């Protein structure tokens, strides 16, 4: 089992000047490629005993007993697969986000919007045997950020995902269907492929909404494929 080479046509390049922070943090050399070895094809596994009963429920996992986070109640759910459409089971997904007003519970975030005493802004879960995941949260607010102009992030939830192999490790962000800030955001627009941006955009899913309680959004994730292809053990880009 090995890891298929990454298809960079769907990935942001390192240097994206309109996203200013990349200017001094993007390596100027092209990354070197080698045949993935046992190190890249293996990865850490996490047990179900790691996950507490409310870790995946951001509406209550930081709230005072009997209280809930402020904002639009939503379920986010989807399936984690690889590029061969195989579900990835028992994969750790961690999420974090701003509160309904666009404020993060982080000591470095000083945005004007208030903290919600009942919202921490993080959660985690393992995918089930079919690669499915689901968590409850509140819809985060957009927030302004320093990038040299009047830049606002679209509402988003950050995702960190482990696959079966460390080379599948991925961090990304989920956006919400219909948000006009998606097209305006220099971070979203680091992605060169419109289809890839569309796949980061969750869709309202009324079929999984609970009447008089909570609406659902559908968001599917894909990790790199693993296959038997033999690689020529030659460094590319060297």
């Amino acid at each position: 089992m090995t890891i298929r080479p990454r298809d960079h046509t769907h990935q942001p390049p390192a240097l994206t000047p309109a996203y200013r922070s990349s200017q001094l943090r993007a390596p100027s050399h092209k990354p070197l490629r080698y045949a993935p070895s046992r190190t890249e094809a293996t990865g850490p596994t996490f047990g179900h005993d790691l996950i507490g009963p409310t870790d995946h429920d951001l509406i209550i996992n930081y709230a005072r007993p009997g209280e809930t986070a402020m904002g639009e109640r939503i379920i986010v759910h989807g399936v984690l697969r690889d590029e061969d459409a195989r579900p990835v089971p028992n994969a750790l997904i961690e999420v974090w986000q701003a509160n309904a007003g666009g404020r993060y519970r982080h000591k470095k975030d000083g945005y004007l919007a208030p903290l919600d005493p009942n919202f921490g802004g993080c959660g985690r879960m393992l995918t089930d045997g079919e690669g499915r995941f689901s968590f409850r949260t509140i819809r985060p607010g957009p927030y302004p950020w320093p990038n040299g102009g009047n830049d606002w992030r679209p509402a988003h939830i950050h995702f960190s995902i482990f696959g079966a192999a460390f080379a599948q490790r991925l961090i990304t962000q989920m956006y919400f269907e219909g948000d006009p800030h998606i097209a305006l955001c220099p971070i979203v627009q680091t992605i060169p492929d419109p289809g890839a941006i569309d796949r980061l955009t969750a869709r309202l899913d009324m079929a999984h909404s609970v009447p008089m309680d909570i609406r659902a959004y559908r968001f599917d994730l894909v990790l790199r494929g693993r296959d038997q292809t033999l690689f020529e053990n030659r460094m590319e880009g060297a």
Partner: protein
Amino acid sequence: MKETASQTAGPYVHIGCVPSVAGLEMYRGQDLGAKMLSPDVTGERITLHGVIHDGSGAPVTDAMIEIWQADAEGRFDNPAFLGWGRQATDAQTGAFRFDTILPGPVTQDDGTRHAPHILMWIVARGINLGLMTRVYFDDGPDPVLDQVPAARRQTLIAQRDGPKLRFDVHLQGAQETVFFDV
């Protein structure tokens, strides 16, 4: 299907991955990956440490680093040693530190031997796709290291001082660390 596009981890990655660094009390106060060692782990204890610098030489104070490594016998399936660690860089200095063991050489299915190494993955604000590199402890021979241009090879070799191994990362510039697309 196509791999989901990456997006930067942003400046607040700590909330989701190392909440105590954000000042957030979650998951019973235990950051995942903070502790790699237990008394059951066999192998030479080492401290892998360094500083991440940006292209201006400034410390990168908001990064998250993960490492993945074999055990002292070069194996990835040791029940006593997960082989995975996660740390944030220091909010003032950009320094990081992992207390772990020296990995053994890894033998591949075809018998090829990789010299002891630790895989390192770096995410932060301004990094659009996580950066992967390998930390080595001497200059080989190794099938990966041997193919890196000689002039850049030293960026992949930790400098030893007793049990302390220093590995500074330069994201850009004259000393730019070699990163891999693997």
